[in-house]
């Protein structure tokens, strides 16, 4: 299904990446905000793998989890807890037919609107090329 605009669920942590997304807007960065569905959570470590699976089941074309930079977590180690789940979650998704272009974990600091715009833009760009989520 070429030409369909990808929908991406973005989990943003309250303390850093949500502020980063805000900064992207305030700084008038160009990024595909219409493709993003942002969900604010208190910490990236709070994003249970179940929520990612559920997002894909409900039709998300991609899922982004953005936390604080290593060492900057408001709860000290929440972003590390999130990071520890990522490699296994990527492989579970692959085995369920969802390739890793569709799922990414990264960090965005509070003022870094530039990075938020870049990460979100890159994912949307990659998924535009792939069309809607397939199960091949």
């Amino acid at each position: 299904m070429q030409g369909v605009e990808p929908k991406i669920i973005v989990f943003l942590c309250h303390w850093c990446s949500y502020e980063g997304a805000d900064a992207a807007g305030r700084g008038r960065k160009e990024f595909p905000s219409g493709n993003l569905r942002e969900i604010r959570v208190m910490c990236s470590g709070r994003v249970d793998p179940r929520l990612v699976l559920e997002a894909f089941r409900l039709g998300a074309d991609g899922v982004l989890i953005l936390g604080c930079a290593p060492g900057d977590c408001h709860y000290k180690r929440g972003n590390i807890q999130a990071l520890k789940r990522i490699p296994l979650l990527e492989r579970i998704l692959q085995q369920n037919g969802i390739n890793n272009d569709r799922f990414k974990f990264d960090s965005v600091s509070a003022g870094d609107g530039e990075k938020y715009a870049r990460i979100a833009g890159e994912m949307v760009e990659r998924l535009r090329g792939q069309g809607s989520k397939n199960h091949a």
Partner: protein
Amino acid sequence: MPEKPKIALYWCSGCGGCEESVIDLSEDLLELQRRADIVFWPVALDSRLKDLEALGNGEIDLTLINGAIRLHEQAHMARLLRRKSKLVVAHGTCAHLGGIVGLGNFHSVPEILARSFREVPTVKNPGGILPGGFKEDSVRGPKLSGLTDKVMALDQVIDVDYYIPGCPPPPELVGEAVWAVLEGRLPEKGFVFGDRKTLCHTCPRLDSKPEQISLKGFKRVHETKWDMEKCFLPQGVICLGPATRGGCDSRCIQANMPCRGCFGPLETMEDHGAGILSFIASMIDAEHEDEIRRITDAIPDPGGLFYRYSAPHSILGGGKGPRT
């Protein structure tokens, strides 16, 4: 004398272990025979489809169906038994969650057929012939039934009243479920016979489970020896007890093997694999992505391990084939 309650048992896609769990009722099986009429049980009795069809709707009091639904014929039989029965119990993990058979959902039907009939080294099939020409309703025809697009747990095909987990279920649980129904002690609909807490709560090795577990690596059972008295997890052997329903009498643990998750998740966990993934990740003692990847790469097949018994009932369902 009032008529005895009628019972039926049926075997779908499974290994037969669940049928064995009925035989393992041993003396209680004779008691069952005294207290109920077994009207349909193809594996053990001379049961005929036409006799089942001749029964009125709802005439059977209790039907136990084991095995997942992998063939159109099984879906047909499940629907027929549902019509004829007041209560239907999903008997064993395959019927409950999809079971080992459910791992088929990580592959498409053409992949499975090609593997089974063409690629396996022990198969000699020079013409590359695949079974085919299936009809939706093959019960009466001479042809073999076709595969459904995906493996399904019983409640993905028909309404199910109760569940007996386990691969196979302990005979005590089968007995508990059967007596509960025969004696009119009916639990609420959807009840899963088994504990309401995880296996760890009743594990004989619980005392040696540390508050916090930090691991630099995972070991597979053939790669290591472990202390037979102590919790598997701090020894680096993955045991699924923390994310799996108890009620199995710690059978595997008592045989010195880690839990593989056959009782499935608790009601509060929608996706068994997601719960397993979370607790395994929490034990990793590393902070950098490279090292985390190195540690988790020691798990060769996370999908197969985390969803060994529950792929059809998982959120993504295994992925291959059309989505339901």
